[in-house]
């Protein structure tokens, strides 16, 4: 209580002071028994006479504390839930400030990660908008303000960008939904097997994501001369008589890059779905069988999918990122720029302007649009999966 007085915060209508004299061990136990939720129970158990800064009481509904002051011990109960919070703005700010001072240690422990996080993620993302309105080549400082010129050029004059959007959408369909569904079914199938086989297949499907940048192998496979594995295979079977230029013929570029993109797309999302299957309670299936579930499809739709919403959401986020940032596979495989800009995605476009032409303002504008597109995709997916997320 003394502590709260220091801050000058008036919490009278919401504070209820009970003298500790009235509380005995039995009563405390009774209170605990009366507590409705386990966390509330934990809170009462956590009440302390040492007035340890509870910088993190994990419940914002009711805080009950036992304080010891020179006058004697007493309990104070502060009601903090939003419905009952009636204090004015200044009181609210004063209270927040008080809380912030109390949670100094929290901020201190958060600082190392958060400072780097702000420098390398938050600032770049936020800066990309103002940067997008400038013309900046890294050499002349400060950047020149050009208003909406970059966005105007992007949408109305830059034909390559228009094509890049089209290409990105094609890639996004394959590496997004298709790969997502594929991960799900693979995980489902793998889950049916013996544990040894499970481990083996998980490793096999995840291995490409770990192997990283071995795109040169795909160049060997798709090589345009008869040394290429694919060409020599097709030749030996008699399907073709001449070598096909897989990576330079505009007709074949897109399928080739999509195949490699799919190959590399079983990443953390796939692992999350796999783990999600593993953590479903088998008794659910038994119950389902009693309730009249006839076959595996019904089981999948009525039991499995609803109980792994969170994992599905995580995997979806991973796929959104992967599908919107398709770039490096195309560039490593078919070169940059590719024939007729066939493998030229939005990300490749940003790379082009950022790293080749050093038009950072223009590149930032592209990146900013990409951020927006990803946020929209994220919220759409969240809407679709929302009914599975609350359990």
């Amino acid at each position, binding site marked *: 209580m003394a502590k709260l007085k220091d801050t000058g915060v008036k919490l009278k209508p919401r504070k209820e002071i009970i003298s500790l*004299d009235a509380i*005995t*061990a039995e009563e405390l136990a009774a209170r605990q028994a009366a507590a409705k939720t*386990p966390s509330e*129970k*934990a*809170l009462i158990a*956590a009440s*302390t006479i040492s007035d*340890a800064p509870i*910088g993190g009481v994990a419940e914002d509904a009711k805080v009950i504390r036992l304080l010891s002051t020179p006058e004697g011990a007493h309990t104070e109960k502060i009601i903090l839930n939003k419905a009952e919070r009636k204090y004015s703005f200044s009181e609210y700010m004063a209270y927040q400030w008080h*809380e*912030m001072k109390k949670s100094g240690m929290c901020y201190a*422990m*958060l600082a190392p*990660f*958060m400072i*780097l996080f702000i*420098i*390398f993620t*938050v600032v*770049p993302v936020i*800066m*990309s908008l103002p940067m997008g309105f400038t013309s900046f080549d*890294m050499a002349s400082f400060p950047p020149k303000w050009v208003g909406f010129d970059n966005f105007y050029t992007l949408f109305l004059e830059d034909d390559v960008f228009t094509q890049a959007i089209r290409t990105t959408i094609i890639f996004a369909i394959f590496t997004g939904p298709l790969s997502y569904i594929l991960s799900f079914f693979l995980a489902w199938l793998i889950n049916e*097997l*013996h544990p040894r086989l499970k481990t083996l*297949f998980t490793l096999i499907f995840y291995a490409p994501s*770990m*192997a*990283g*940048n071995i795109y040169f*192998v795909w160049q*060997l*496979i798709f090589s345009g001369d008869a040394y290429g*594995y694919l060409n*020599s295979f097709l030749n030996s079977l008699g399907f073709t008589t001449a070598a096909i230029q897989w990576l330079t013929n505009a007709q074949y570029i897109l399928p080739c890059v999509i195949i490699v993109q799919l*190959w590399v797309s079983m990443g*953390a999302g796939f692992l*999350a779905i796999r*783990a999600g299957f*593993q*953590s479903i309670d*088998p008794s659910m299936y038994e119950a389902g*069988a009693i309730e009249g*579930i006839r076959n595996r499809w019904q089981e999948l739709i009525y039991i499995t999918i609803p109980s792994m*919403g*969170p*994992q599905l*959401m*995580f995997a979806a986020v991973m796929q959104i990122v992967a599908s919107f*940032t398709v*770039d490096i596979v195309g560039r490593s495989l078919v070169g940059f720029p590719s024939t007729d800009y066939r493998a030229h995605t939005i990300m490749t476009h940003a790379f082009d302007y*950022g790293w080749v032409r050093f038009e950072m303002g223009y590149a930032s504008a592209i*990146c900013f649009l990409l*951020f927006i597109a*990803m946020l929209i995709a*994220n919220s759409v997916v*969240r809407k679709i999966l929302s009914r599975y*997320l609350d359990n």
Partner: protein
Amino acid sequence: MAKKELKPSEIAAKQAADNAAALEALRARRAKEHAKMEKSKGSNKRVGKTWKNDIGIVIFLSLLGLFMVFPIYIAIITSIKPINELFIMPPKLYSIDPTFDNFEDLFIVANNSWVPFSRNVFNSFLVTVVSTGLHVVFACMASFILAKCRFPGSVLINKAVVIALLFNSTVTYIMQYIVMARLGMINTYAALVLPMIPQAMGLFLLIQSVGQIPDAMIEAAKVDGASLMRICWGIVMPNVKPALMTIIIFEFQAVWNYAGGSVVYDEALKTIPTVVQQIALAGLSRQGAIGASAVVLMIPPLVIFIAAQGQVMETMAHAGMKD
């Protein structure tokens, strides 16, 4: 009923009991989860489950698996083919006379650049170890605070972390470069290490796992007078070892494969992937050495993943986003 005052010693005893109970409950739940996982492996009798289905699944997965493994297999085969076999027409799927010449060749080629290859290897290990270490230490503290403490701004930061999963380094790379250039970090070790530390993915996974630890345990430790630091390292982290292992693996993979060619141009600072990229510029004529380097780069992440596979799966089970 005799009314007696609740003495500090009694409360402390009660807390100790609670603490033990909470730990016991956590252990029991772990054991139950483990048993559940064990049970769900293998022989779960369920609707429409027959051994015929299983064989069908194995055949189907094996076919797809072949497609997944084939390029990796080619990389390994290429790395052990002697030079005359690399150019056989038509290309063979096996090596007649396997040799380690390509690995030697890789070493010689790499040594012929400005600095000895050992320097690049050292750089790779230095950068990987330092950023993985700092990532884990920082993420541990941050995840504990974000998962278990409420303070002004905590909800906002938690939301920011989830959204940041969308903005991985691929997209923010250009803007990151500008920031690094303004901070004068280009062409220093800092450019390779610092941006790799605040990976949202590792923090997110850890927050989810720490969230599984009962609040009562932490509150009890607070009552016992433990500082937040002590709770974090003494109580929380030992209970999320699988998650720690997982984020170490993810971070290791990310840093190990990161080719920082555009932020570091001094040969003495380059890591293995960058050097490999340079060697790869020689194209197909040096495919043996490229294959060898691919194998060398591939081995550490693979080995670590295989060793910790079970722990990764356990962590990923908690990876869900509930909102």
